[in-house]
């Protein structure tokens, strides 16, 4: 007996066996507890099911409507960045031994997965110069929120201070987490000339009863913050300093551990993960030994068994929800295993010198673009602070119109930021990573001259 549905493997016999097993005579019988007025009596109004070749053709037709970064030259950034992903990453990632998106629940049975996570944690620690990193969180936004909650737990304070120059999406997620917990969020503004968060702008009395100060560098506008001074100011008030960083930038910028960050986190997507229409993403999260028992998330440790053989286990689980119950500081019991694995493979391929090279290429490309745009009289830059791979530009023409014209020429223009920062009307955010060629940059500059 065949299956009545092309994509559902149950045969009529299977269904009859299951119904007999649980002692009901029909599917209708099974749902008899649902009042008749709520039950569907006719088939859903859906088109006829397609055969596999028809379905394949249909999906290809729909997919062809989407633009992808191999067809267009993209200057989008604002949190996600297009970097070259060596083909080894995908090859390793799709091996059957590794290919699951999920955290292992029979953890110790999956020694290979645990070892990969352990390597990932080690690399994040090396990259950030922090003592301990977790197995990863969903994305940078949830990592920011978890850092805020963890800081409140560690300091027994209930207010977090956040720079307005951190990614607006992260601040939205932070608000979502903070509200039901009664955590107060205080936002401090950026300096309108430099685009940075000036340490002197943060009054001491504001931080004195704050759990933490959250600053992103490079910030949302691409500007490199004075993290050492901000960290020092924060610690004078015995608040924790939370550094949100772009992992690629750590190829050339000072790591959070060097300026005394208590928590370092960020979006790990740039490490070997595609932009993929915005996800899945990878929140990396690291802290100090002093605070490790307050850290959210899974943590893999290396140990040995009773015969002295190396093995990997989930460790410090007493922090976690299944043990601490309502006193747990976080309900995260998962991780982004596959994205973290991609980051691990990427970092192992790049090595410290490769990562530095990528960071330098990003800087050169972004600065080349910036300096060429500076020569076109119709454009100006709202900020003069130092930047890494991204910067804001203000032009005369409405950004939406300019981007539409660019798109016709195969170029995805800068991200519009007016909705999040009304004071920056007419401004767009332009990112240039190592994937942009000199020729592409020159083409863009010619187009921008025409579209000024």
């Amino acid at each position, binding site marked *: 007996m065949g299956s009545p549905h092309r994509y559902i493997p149950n045969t009529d016999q299977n269904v009859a066996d299951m119904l007999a097993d649980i002692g009901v005579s029909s599917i209708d019988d099974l749902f008899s507890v649902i009042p008749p007025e709520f039950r569907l009596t006719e088939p859903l109004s859906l088109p006829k099911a397609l055969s596999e070749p028809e379905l394949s053709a249909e999906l290809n037709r729909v997919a062809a409507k989407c633009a992808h970064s191999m067809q267009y030259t993209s200057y989008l950034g604002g949190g996600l960045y297009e970097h070259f992903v060596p083909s080894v990453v995908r090859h390793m990632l799709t091996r059957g031994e590794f290919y699951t998106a999920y955290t292992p629940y029979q953890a110790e049975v999956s020694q290979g997965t645990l070892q990969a996570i352990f390597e990932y944690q080690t690399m994040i620690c090396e990259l950030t110069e922090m003592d301990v990193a977790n197995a990863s969180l969903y994305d940078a936004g949830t990592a920011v929120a978890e850092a805020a909650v963890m800081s409140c737990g560690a300091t*027994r304070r209930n207010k977090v201070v956040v720079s307005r120059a951190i990614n607006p999406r992260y601040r939205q997620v932070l608000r979502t987490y903070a509200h039901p917990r009664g955590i107060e969020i205080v936002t401090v503004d950026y300096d309108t000339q430099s685009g940075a968060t000036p340490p002197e702008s943060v009054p001491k009395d504001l931080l004195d009863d704050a759990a933490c100060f959250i600053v992103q560098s490079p910030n949302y506008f691409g500007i490199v913050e004075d993290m050492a001074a901000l960290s020092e100011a924060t610690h004078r008030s015995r608040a924790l300093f939370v550094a949100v960083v772009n992992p690629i930038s750590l190829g050339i910028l000072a790591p959070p551990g060097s300026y005394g960050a208590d928590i370092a986190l960020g979006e790990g997507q740039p490490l070997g993960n595609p932009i993929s229409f915005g996800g899945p993403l990878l929140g990396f999260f690291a802290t100090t030994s002093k605070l490790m*028992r307050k850290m959210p998330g899974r943590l893999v440790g290396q140990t040995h068994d009773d015969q002295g053989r190396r093995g990997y286990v989930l460790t410090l689980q*007493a*922090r976690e929800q299944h*043990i*601490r119950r309502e*006193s747990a500081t976080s309900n995260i019991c998962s991780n982004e295993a596959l994205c973290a694995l991609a980051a691990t493979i990427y970092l192992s391929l790049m090595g410290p010198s490769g990562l530095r090279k990528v960071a330098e290429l990003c800087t050169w490309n972004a600065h080349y673009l910036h300096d060429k745009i500076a020569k076109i009289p119709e454009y100006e830059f709202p900020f003069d602070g130092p930047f890494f791979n991204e910067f804001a530009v203000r032009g005369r023409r409405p950004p939406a119109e300019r981007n539409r014209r660019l798109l016709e020429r195969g170029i995805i223009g800068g991200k519009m930021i007016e909705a999040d920062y009304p004071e920056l009307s007419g401004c767009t955010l332009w990112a240039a990573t190592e994937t942009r060629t000199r020729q592409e940059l020159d083409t863009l500059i010619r187009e921008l001259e025409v579209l000024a």
Partner: protein
Amino acid sequence: MSSKMRFTSDHEWVELEGNIATIGITEHAAEELGDVIYVELPAVGDTFAQGDNLAVAESVKAAADIFAPIGGTVTEVNDALEDEPGLVNEDPMGNGWIVRIDVDDVTELDDLMDEEEYEEYLKEEEQ
């Protein structure tokens, strides 16, 4: 066990000397918890009201909150527990003490059980 000790229903003990109260967990609590591998201590100067979460004792499979049996300001914490958390199992009522606090209101002790009442309470709990 000193007769001046007082006990809570969460199995903490407190002993008052002058205005300073020494606080720990009882033998019963230590046994129930199993091998303690970490004690999260408050900082000297932290203030607590009676019943606040004062410290956390973590064993291999559990983490237990330790509540302040009496309100006050922490004057001293048992630093020895940082290297030797097992002291809580070996000598819970002595060298395994957790914190000393400068008591705000001594009359709060009246809410707690004396040794005899606590023994009775343990028997009831067992049943």
